[in-house]
């Protein structure tokens, strides 16, 4: 009998301990709102603290630290806590885990292609129209920033934007007898020069790769927003509800891309783990990439002799894919008026033309505001000029789910090169998969 009393006692202890431990986990979901209502009036004259998050990328952290220092000096009653400790690969996971626990950011930086998922998840709130009038955004920002309007509502704004351009390795071109000062300016020239630049050893193994078609890098963007348009098509309807690249023009663009792997055999993306590493390592002549790659090359292969040109045109059509990391206000910020006002001020500051000008010097991304982006000095820059020139004809795809839509293109490319699927069938499969993702997204609106 004594024994059973003992068990009851210990059992009760355990249950109490568990309840104590489990309680805090259940509470935070509701507490921020309750707190803010009670404390708001008292907070008016005190320092407001807001939290800002981005992923860890040294140059971005440095640039943002400088912007925050300037902002805090101009607004002594606002303190910005900068959290940039999260590696890129974990950024989305961390946000997903932190926000439900009530400890996330008030202002967060996200890839523009993630907007829909974040908005659907109830995480971002619309930007207030008085502080960010849509007309002002249309007038002052690069046209690609229109992708920040989701169903007519503005949710985010960027400091800087990026575009794609053609990187070329001057030494490899010279080795192949090509003129390193006249890189390909049309798609036909690119195909010819890539073939001329490719070198194999006696066993037929690639030594120098002319051009590596790698949809897992930037080439899925290049296909959708550049090649399809240059062959006379459009990738999607204007409202991005319907896939259109599975037509005649799309097919020509698709064949052009795949030929680098099949007919021309100018490269193999499996060597060096993808086209980007291969180019940065100095094994590839021509490569389509964004301005953010300038930093990678400066860090990993600073002695490489390379240049950057605008993307090759075709049929007289120029196009490039624009994309950007953008800043949004979170539900957490919206829960407290004082914090929300501070967050709006901060967002206005970091999306100003001045902020963009500071950003381009440190990060190498182009200012999102046209005023700073069309700076003649920038356009004349040997490396950045080609990207800056692309801003006026750039297109940013509206993504319902960027990773799935990207995967659709990668998988279809794999079908052709790995399993000998008919290219037309593969392209149709990509379009169907992509369409399904879009339907899924729009039907839930």
């Amino acid at each position: 009998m004594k024994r059973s009393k003992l068990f009851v006692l210990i059992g009760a202890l355990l249950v109490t301990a568990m309840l104590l431990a489990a309680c805090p986990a259940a509470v935070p979901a509701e507490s921020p709102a309750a707190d803010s209502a009670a404390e708001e009036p008292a907070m008016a004259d005190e320092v407001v603290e807001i939290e800002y998050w981005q992923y860890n990328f040294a140059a971005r952290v440095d640039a943002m630290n400088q912007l925050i220092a300037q902002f805090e000096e101009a607004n002594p009653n606002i303190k910005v806590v900068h959290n940039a400790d999260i590696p890129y690969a974990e950024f989305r996971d961390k946000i997903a885990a932190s926000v439900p626990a009530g400890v996330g950011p008030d202002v967060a930086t996200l890839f523009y292609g993630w907007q829909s998922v974040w908005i659907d998840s109830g995480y971002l709130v619309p930007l207030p129209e008085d502080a960010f009038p849509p007309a002002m955004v249309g007038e002052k920002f690069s046209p690609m920033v229109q992708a920040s309007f989701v169903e007519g509502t503005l949710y985010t704004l960027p400091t800087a934007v990026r575009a794609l351009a053609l990187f070329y390795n001057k030494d490899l071109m010279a080795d192949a007898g090509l003129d390193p000062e006249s890189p390909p300016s049309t798609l036909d020239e690119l195909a010819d020069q890539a073939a001329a630049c490719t070198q194999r050893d006696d066993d037929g193994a690639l030594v120098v790769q002319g051009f590596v078609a790698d949809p897992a890098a930037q080439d899925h963007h290049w296909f959708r927003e550049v090649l399809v348009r240059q062959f006379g098509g459009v990738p999607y309807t204007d409202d991005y509800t319907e896939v259109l690249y599975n037509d005649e023009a799309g097919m020509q663009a698709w064949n052009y891309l795949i030929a680098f792997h099949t007919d021309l055999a100018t490269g193999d993306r499996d060597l060096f783990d993808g086209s980007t590493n291969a180019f940065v390592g100095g094994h590839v002549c021509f490569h389509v990439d964004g301005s953010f790659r300038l930093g990678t090359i400066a860090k990993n292969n600073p002695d490489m002799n390379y240049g950057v040109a605008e993307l090759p045109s075709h049929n007289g059509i120029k196009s490039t894919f624009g994309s950007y990391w953008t800043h949004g206000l979170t539900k957490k910020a919206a829960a407290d008026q004082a914090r929300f006002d501070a967050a709006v001020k901060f967002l206005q500051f970091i999306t100003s033309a001045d902020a963009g000008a500071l950003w381009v010097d440190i990060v190498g991304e182009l200012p999102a505001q046209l005023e700073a982006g069309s700076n003649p000095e920038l356009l004349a820059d040997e490396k950045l000029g080609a990207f800056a020139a692309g801003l006026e004809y750039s297109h940013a795809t509206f993504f319902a789910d960027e990773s799935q839509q990207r995967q659709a293109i990668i998988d279809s490319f794999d079908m052709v090169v790995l399993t000998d699927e008919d290219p037309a069938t593969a392209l149709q499969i990509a379009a169907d998969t992509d369409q399904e993702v879009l339907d899924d997204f729009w039907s839930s609106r």
Partner: protein
Amino acid sequence: MRFTLRQRQIIWAYIFMSVALVFFVIIRWYPTILAFNVSFRDWNVFEGSGPWVGLENYQEIWKDAGKPRSSVTAAFSNTVRYVLFGVPSQLVLALAIALLLAQIRRLSAVFRVAYFAPYVTSAVAVAFVWNWLYQPETGLINQGLDLLGLPQQPFTKSPAQALPSITAVAVWQNLGFAVIIFLAGIQQIPGHYYEAARIDGANAWQLFWRITLPLLNPIIVYLTVLGTISYLRLFALVQNMSPQGTGGPLKSTTTVVLEVYREGFSSYKMGYAGALTVLLFFLILLITIIQLRFFSRRVEY
């Protein structure tokens, strides 16, 4: 109420042990139960809640499984293939190595460390090293093939070879654990069984089939169950060895856990991911019960 010294010792023992139990309940059971709850909801990851939708997530999985080139179907069929390839090869290899190790005295500790080291190495580190070994052209294995005059192989880059290539790494990684357990089992078998059998004229083959193997049965069951569960939960190797960590090429290496991760943390469909988790839970439960029922038999001499 007064306790005897013995009772007080027991109380303290329970109090100390309860720390582990509390940890277990909060870190393991609570999320497990929550996953069941999530699987019946249209869970919004940012709000930490969502409306009850009953079996809708499960219906969606069922619908997706019926589509051509479905990730869900690929995930389940690949997972089963990892188990079917991985568990038997791991058991056979481990037993063979353990039998050899039991024979030797010199350097046996060195060999044990060599076989066990991969087991305590992080799966991500293992994946990176093997990615290099598997590289086309520059990888050690392909250069070896070149030297032997054999054609180079794509390994993880080909839909046909990727799954076996990753399974081989998983086997290599888990081998050490199975070897050590087998070795302990072999050393438990009383030597006089073998002596008696030899006197009766049994040869080495008979000793193995009639004595060693039957007496190792509990260990084989134990390793089969544990091995099966670990292959059913395969994730880190696949995420780090498939192109872009997506379970490719062409979904040929994806696993259920990888799909859970992708649906949950890339598409933020927590309810769907929760439902997949629950299905995997029942799959593991079912397979484990079957294994324990059919393979466990007591052998006594």
